[in-house]
């Protein structure tokens, strides 16, 4: 009899402890679920915030800022004497001769004349091609702008005189858009690191035009180019060139 009673108590105790265990487990799960929901809400809020942020205008492309700065710089002028003088750039203004740029000897006080970016040969890499729409202002009679392509076909830089790159190239310009007639003329010239200036004139006198390009738009993929009469540099047409 006692033995039976003891057994009963034992079973009851076991049962009670097992329900308590399961209760604790449920409560634990409840808390976890709760926390997860809480996190979900935070995530949701954050997502909403992100969406709102996305709707705001993006930060401007650094390239765009560069181009903007270049345009302002062009308007400000260099402060250097006309001719061969070129500004070193940097905080303290200084002008030096373009013959001394990129020749391996630091001539600017801040050494900017030997800056790898300034001395980049990117504009005249063989195969570089620049295209644009020419607005003819003289020399050719066209009412509408026509396509033009300038391509660098060879470049040569001498170790003993590094401030210029001697180049050859081809200029092709549309003469008749209806029949797609194109004039192609060989040109030769040089690139001036200091001025970021490219000049090419006809290889032989039987050809008509030369071309000059200023890489003054903040990068080496865009340039301000003109088609010129080689002798006088009289401007025949103008185009905004982009590398392609």
């Amino acid at each position, binding site marked *: 009899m006692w033995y039976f009673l003891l057994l009963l108590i034992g079973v009851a105790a076991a049962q009670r402890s097992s329900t308590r265990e399961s209760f604790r487990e449920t409560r634990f799960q409840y808390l976890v679920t709760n926390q997860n929901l809480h996190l979900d809400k935070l995530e949701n809020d954050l997502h909403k915030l992100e969406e709102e942020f996305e709707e705001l205008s993006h930060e401007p492309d650094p390239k765009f800022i560069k181009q903007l700065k270049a345009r302002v710089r062009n308007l400000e002028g260099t402060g250097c004497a006309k*001719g061969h*003088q070129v500004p070193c750039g940097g905080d303290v203004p200084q002008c030096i*001769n373009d*013959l*001394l740029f990129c020749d391996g000897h630091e001539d600017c006080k801040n050494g900017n004349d030997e800056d790898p970016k300034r001395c980049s040969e990117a504009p005249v890499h063989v195969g570089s091609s620049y295209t644009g729409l020419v607005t003819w202002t003289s020399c050719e009679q066209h009412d509408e702008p026509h396509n033009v392509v300038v391509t660098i076909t060879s470049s040569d830089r001498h170790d*003993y*005189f590094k401030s210029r790159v001697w180049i050859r190239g081809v200029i092709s310009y549309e003469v008749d858009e209806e029949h797609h007639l194109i004039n192609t003329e060989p040109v030769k010239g*040089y690139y001036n690191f200091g001025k970021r200036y490219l000049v090419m004139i006809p290889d032989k006198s039987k050809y008509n035009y030369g071309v000059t390009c200023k890489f003054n738009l903040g990068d080496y993929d865009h340039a301000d180019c003109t088609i010129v009469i080689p002798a006088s540099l009289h401007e025949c047409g103008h185009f905004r060139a982009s590398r392609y």
Partner: protein
Amino acid sequence: RVLEVALRLKSVLKMIKTLIVLLLAVVAVTMAAECDTLTRLKIKSQWRRAYSHGHDREDFAQAIWRAVFAQVPTARKLFDKVHGEDTTHPEFEAHALRVLAGFDIAINLLDQKDALKAELDHLHEQHKERHIPDNYFVAFRTALLHVLPAQLGRCWDKEAWKACYDYISHGISHH
């Protein structure tokens, strides 16, 4: 009749053709440059533009001498007394300008034979005892032929410069 006219036209055309060929031959001969009177005048005016003035002249000289020493580094030794080891040293800059001044005289006298001869003889005397190897003169020529177009841009005549430089350098070195 029509045939006759056509034939005559043909012969006239032929004559024009031979004339053009002859003309071209003459042009070709004059183009194979020689330091003749017209070429000398051309050199004189191109030099005046290149030689420029003030700071630009100093830099022009600087660029030429850097190009010379880059080709023949041993030539620096000849300029020990004027700090040839550093082309930006004031004494060397002064010297570089002096050299160009001599060159300037020679070029400006290109159209006055007797005076030019006197100047070249004078320069020859100055250079004689220094025993300057011929390749230094060649290096100077190469330097000049590269800095000149950089300085002058598109309007310059390489062949003319080669011819007249050789004339002057021969007058100085007698080689």
